[in-house]
């Protein structure tokens, strides 16, 4: 298994070095520029768009390797994997829903799984289902064939699979976001969209979505870990080469302290991604690792900017992108403080059991 993962890591790193590194500027300026043409086909050729929560360990290794160079394509892979996992869990045939971009799935991965507050509404009309309303921040929506969307029904909540080309589906312009800018994201407006009833993917969506999110936590943290690795290695190189007051800034104890702290967080995030993707340990430990790793990466990448001073704030170095991406990645699968409420609930449940 380890050898297989090493193989995946190596091949993804090669792709990242060749394809992602060369289009990093385009990715960083999306949607003000176009998405690099070869990006989605490249991810598909690597087999990354066929992965789901069943391949959590592989996914985590691949996403960390991508994020070490540029994290935006990792967002594409993760949203697709989330959508596929939901579909797979309901035993629907994904191939039936092939869209125009290699059957790519879209899913709002920044929302709290199983919490539906602002979602399209679904009503039954004979054998058909009708969708109306706006789904916000749907990741991959501008490039996906299949939109997997939490919706509200008269009975509660559900998840619907909507062909992106259906009548009444309007994908808004790609949104400019804080980070992961090369991960195409848009609001989707549904106006009387009719779907067959077999596109209602689960009758108990909260459990389904939380299960998928739980299995993919390691992948989300792997993105944070990769981003932090990029920031750390840039900081070390810069501190070694930059002189201030006649000496390399790496000779300043405060600089060493900050770098060491980043390295501590880097190690923590990497191990957290591995443990989470291997599904090791109880739920409460999962949640604790998930919360802390994402938060630490977001804060440590701010130090990554600080270590480079003015240069860290400029787009010429990866630091500012890492800082933005890490804060964006912190929001994967929702607010950390919401996850904290769940963590405590899990602890209470354990004590009560």
């Amino acid at each position, binding site marked *: 298994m380890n050898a297989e993962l090493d193989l995946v890591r190596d091949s993804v790193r090669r792709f990242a070095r060749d394809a992602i590194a060369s289009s990093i500027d385009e990715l960083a300026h999306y949607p003000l520029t176009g998405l690099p043409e070869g990006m989605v086909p490249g991810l598909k050729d690597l087999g990354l768009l066929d992965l789901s929560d069943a391949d959590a360990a592989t996914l985590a290794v691949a996403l960390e390797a991508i994020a070490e160079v540029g994290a935006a394509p990792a967002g594409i892979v993760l949203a697709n994997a989330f959508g596929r996992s939901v579909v797979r869990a309901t035993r629907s045939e994904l191939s039936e829903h092939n869209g125009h971009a290699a059957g790519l799935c879209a899913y709002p991965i*920044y929302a709290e799984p199983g919490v539906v507050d602002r979602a399209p509404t679904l009503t039954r009309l004979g054998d058909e289902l009708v969708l109306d309303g706006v789904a916000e921040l749907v990741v991959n929506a501008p490039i996906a064939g299949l939109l997997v969307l939490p919706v509200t029904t008269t009975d509660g909540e559900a998840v619907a699979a909507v062909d992106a080309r259906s009548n009444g589906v309007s994908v808004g312009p790609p949104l*400019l976001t804080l980070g992961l800018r090369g991960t195409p994201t848009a609001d989707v407006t549904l106006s009387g969209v009719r779907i067959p009833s077999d596109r209602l993917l689960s009758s108990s969506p909260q459990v389904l979505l939380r299960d998928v999110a739980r299995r993919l936590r390691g992948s989300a943290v792997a993105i944070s870990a990769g981003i932090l690795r990029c920031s750390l290695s840039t900081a070390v190189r810069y501190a070694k080469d930059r002189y*201030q007051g006649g000496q390399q800034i790496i000779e300043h104890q405060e600089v060493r302290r900050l770098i060491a702290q980043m390295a501590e967080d880097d190690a923590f995030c990497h191990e957290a991604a591995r443990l989470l993707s291997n599904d090791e340990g109880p739920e409460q430990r999962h949640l604790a690792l998930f919360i802390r790793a994402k938060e630490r990466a977001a804060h440590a990448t701010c130090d990554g900017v600080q270590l480079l001073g003015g240069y860290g704030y400029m787009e010429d170095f990866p630091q500012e992108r890492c800082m933005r991406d890490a*804060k964006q990645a912190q929001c994967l699968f929702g607010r950390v403080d919401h996850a904290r409420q769940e963590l405590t609930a899990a602890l209470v449940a354990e004590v009560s059991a």
Partner: protein
Amino acid sequence: MTHSEPHVAELGSGQSFAAMYPALAALGKHRPQMLADYESVLADARRFRREYLEPNALRVELEVMRDPTYVAQDAIVAGSRYGFFSTMIPKAFGGGGLSFGVMIVALEELGAGCLGISNLLGVHGLAIATVSATGDLGRMEKLCRRLTEGEKRGRPHLLSTAITEPGAGTDVEDVELLEKARLSCEATPVRGGYQLNGRKVFISNGSVAGTHVVVMPTDRKNPVETTFAFLVGSDTPGFRVGRVEHKMGQKACPAAELVFEECFVPESARLNSEPLPGRRIELVLGATRGGVGAWGTAAARGALERALAHAKTTRLGGRWLIDQQWVQLKLAEMQRNVMLARASYVDAMLSNELFGLSALVGQNALADLMRKVPQPILDSRPVQALLTSRRSRETLQKSIADLPQADLDVASSHGSAAKVSCTELGMTNCHLALDIFGAAGLRHDRGIEKLYRDAKLLTIYEGTNQLNRIEIYQRSVHRHSSKRDEPVAQRPAADAAKEVQR
């Protein structure tokens, strides 16, 4: 530690409480006019924020994202209608005559609306402070007249301050680092003037300023004793604007590379003063770092204002965010941070008014008095001749030279403390706000992600927060004699207490 050494290193022994907490010293020098000025400036800033900043900040940023050379000329013109470019110029030189401390209050308000545009306006003030610190009243008067006249015509003449070099950032602001800094710029003395060569980088307003206050040594091998300020017009042969930087945030305030290639400036371009490194730079930074503190407070407050509005209109798990305890306490924490930050920068501002640059350049009770003198009298030839005379200049320069080290320490350490505290509290609040927003906060159109990007720059410019911590240590924790100042003038219990009595 040996038994003979004390177990407690007392801080501030021999200092009056007012010196440790300058707000108290300010009580003793209370000027009713100053409070009136705060309210007046704040009212203007609020109106400008409401009428221009809130409707335009995101649009301007998008314009710059599409074209980094875009300059929000409409912001400059709109700001000039409020007199933001001349408010702190002495009335005798045609300006509003308000103190820098009063303007700081406006910076918080403007920054809460948009840090980038606020910086576009505020960087101009940094240059005026730098010119003030040289004590060269003659040249200052000429420059100020140009600024005020431009503003009256609706075509403001902006200033930039060019200090940072490609290989030397923080170094240039610190005497001890400057000595060994990898400088590339030099103003070589030539017949009739100086020839400037080299590159300055990250210069805020560099691509829009009409005049640049350029800090360069005349001998690169001896920068501590030969660094001066030069006034360089943007149309000077041999000068050009290089690359406009692509920044993460504060995009409305362009940061540019300034290139000097055999750029000749006459002798008169050099501001007449002792070398800048040491107390002159410290006087400037002691004043302007408090201003950065105001922007840090602005970031903290802007984050709170946006998070509060979002919490009132958003549900999570079927309940309004504002009704959830974890959100309420985060908002309370953010308000606490705003309060702490504001206290810190106001303290720095008062330190500067009493012990720093503002105390020296007459932005005090004398300035209040001057504002009551009719403008024609101030503009009259005898008054102007007196103000710009060699004697006035020498008097001011002597005041700078005679400024007790203890006073300078109070102003510098409080300026640095405000800079570090406020900017880090600003970042903290941005993190907290984004945590409350969740997914919605990631969108550009909500404004909070922009504030997060904008706020980070505050921890870097005007000396990184790390350098400022060193400053605090050396100024108020463990004084030691260094090349940055004369031997320490001990003023046991004399300083602020006497100021209060006066």
